[in-house]
């Protein structure tokens, strides 16, 4: 019987032919924890009687969520992570290295066919590299650090085929926001999603990471894509490791298949307080904003900063708006500097903060005031997400956020892109 990508990867790692609904114990290739989840994982590791991690090469910690530390409580948890990492000989990405979901792919340790778990829900990002990657909690992480294994319920697969070509000024972020709006926040719960079709094939790797990143916002366990020449070229720039692409069989069994034509899509905006409360930009244009954020594991990559700079260069951010920019990683930051992007952003009035999560999760770097509207390139707009439950968060593409930062209200970025 044919298999989906998820079924193939779980079969290869469990040594048994696995199909949806089976329960398998599988060997994992890579394990990641961040500073919001690792401290608890270290505690569970110790409580479980763990002494050594099964293979230090396959485990990494990232300090990105509150980096640099904003308080002594956080500092002490960071210290715990640093100590554990040194003792165990695992790699620790300390402050300033970037968001976990950017530094892990950049490390070249994850690729087609890999099975990856991360104690962070957006671990599904690596699905863009044809890896089965999923978020887990701290105790699962601890169990995997000890045993190199995790138990999985083999997910059903939902194949989403995106037809057509995205129009100018409409990006990967708009595509995934649109899909989430259509499918809702639990439209793919427990399932692996396979994103396919020419609209996905035409995306850059950066765009594909953006799409895979948000698979969890429809409840998915993983957001998978096939590996093509772009994937392999991207990997070749980051590692010499060789990977074998995993394709679904022709007769693979899908729980659901849906097709969307994206060739007429407008820029999309997710409105407060739900990620699936998505409208075309035309419907919400004019809503005032006091803060704009470009960055996060969804949209803090070079291409994202480049498009923002294209809109912002030579212009000034509106006087009633604070623009916060957080490059996704040090590597992204350096490349953006070389290209003059950072210069252009700072000249336009942006405050550039440390590579990492930035203000995404409300620990620091720009917590909004009561009643304020924020437009952000992040992936979640839950009430209180950015640290104040009396603020309102809108999610959009880097282009829409940059255009809105200029005008002080939600703005269709195509006005600015056409005039250049």
């Amino acid at each position, binding site marked *: 019987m044919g298999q989906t990508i998820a079924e193939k990867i779980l079969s290869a790692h469990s040594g048994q032919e696995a199909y949806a609904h089976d*329960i398998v*114990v599988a060997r994992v290739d890579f394990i990641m924890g961040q*500073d*919001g*989840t690792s*401290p*608890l994982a270290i*505690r*569970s590791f110790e*409580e*479980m*009687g*763990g002494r050594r991690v099964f293979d230090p090469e396959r485990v990494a910690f990232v300090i990105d*969520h*509150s980096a640099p530390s904003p*308080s002594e*409580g*956080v500092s002490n*948890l960071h210290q715990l992570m640093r100590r554990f990492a040194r003792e165990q000989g695992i790699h620790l990405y300390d402050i300033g290295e970037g968001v976990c979901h950017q530094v892990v792919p950049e490390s070249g340790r994850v690729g087609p066919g890999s099975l990856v778990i*991360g*104690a*962070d*829900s957006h*671990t599904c990002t690596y699905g863009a590299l044809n890896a089965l990657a999923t*978020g*887990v*909690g*701290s*105790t*699962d992480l*601890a*169990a995997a650090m*000890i*045993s190199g*294994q995790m*138990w999985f*319920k083999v997910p059903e697969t939902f194949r989403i085929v995106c037809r057509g070509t995205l129009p100018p000024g409409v990006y990967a972020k708009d595509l995934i926001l649109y899909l989430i709006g259509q499918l809702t*926040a*639990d439209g793919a*719960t*427990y399932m692996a999603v396979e994103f396919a079709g020419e609209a996905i094939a035409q995306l850059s790797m950066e765009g594909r990471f953006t799409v895979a990143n948000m698979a969890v916002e429809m*409840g998915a*366990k993983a957001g998978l894509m096939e590996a093509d020449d772009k994937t392999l070229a991207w990997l070749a720039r980051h590692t010499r490791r060789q990977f074998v692409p995993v394709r679904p069989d022709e007769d693979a069994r899908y729980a659901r298949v849906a097709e969307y034509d994206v060739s007429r899509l407008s820029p999309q905006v997710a409105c407060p307080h*739900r990620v699936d409360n998505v409208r075309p930009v035309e419907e919400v244009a004019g809503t005032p904003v006091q803060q704009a954020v470009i960055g996060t594991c969804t949209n803090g990559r070079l291409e994202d900063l480049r498009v923002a700079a294209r809109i912002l260069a030579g212009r000034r951010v509106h006087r009633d708006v604070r623009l916060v920019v957080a490059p996704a990683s040090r590597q992204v930051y350096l490349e953006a500097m070389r290209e003059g992007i950072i210069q252009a952003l700072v000249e336009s009035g942006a405050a550039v903060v440390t590579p990492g999560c930035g203000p995404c*999760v*409300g*620990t620091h770097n720009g917590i909004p005031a009561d009643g304020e509207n924020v437009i952000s390139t992040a992936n*979640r707009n*839950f*009430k*209180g*997400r950015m*640290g104040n*439950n009396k603020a309102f968060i809108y999610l959009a593409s880097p282009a829409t956020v940059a255009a809105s930062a200029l005008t002080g209200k939600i703005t269709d970025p195509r006005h600015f892109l056409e005039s250049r």
Partner: protein
Amino acid sequence: MLLKGKAHKFGDDINTDYIISGKYKFKTLDMDELARHVMEDLDPDFYHKIAPGDFIVAGRNFGCGSSREQAPLAIKHARISAVLAKSFARIFYRNAINTGLPVVECDTDQIDPGDELEVDLKAGLITNRTKATTLPIKPLPPVMIKILNDGGLVAHFRKHGGFRLEEEKE
């Protein structure tokens, strides 16, 4: 295990940011401290309304959002004995089982705020004392029962030194 308490009702898509806000969870590993802020963004007084053993009763997709295990832990430390919902988000569901918080899928439309409930996990039945009705529970997968019975994944590893999830042969 027979759990007894009162129902506290919430809606659909209760995410982990609502259960325990990021601004608290990054600061401490003290779960009793985190428990004081459970559901705070939805109901600032919630913690004080809980009597030990009470239930959180919710709609669809409970626990969506981040992978923070502090979410089920904060609920557990707030002395909630189980969460009842129409469905759960995947990571939360696993984390709840791993940390020993019972999660029960059932038709929660049949339960009103303040109803007195008895949840019998073994028999797979909820008795609504207030309404004098019973509700069936969707059974947990055997792997999860095994982990819950051991008292969570930490206890499971202490006991077996690794994963021992094969179904026992009679």
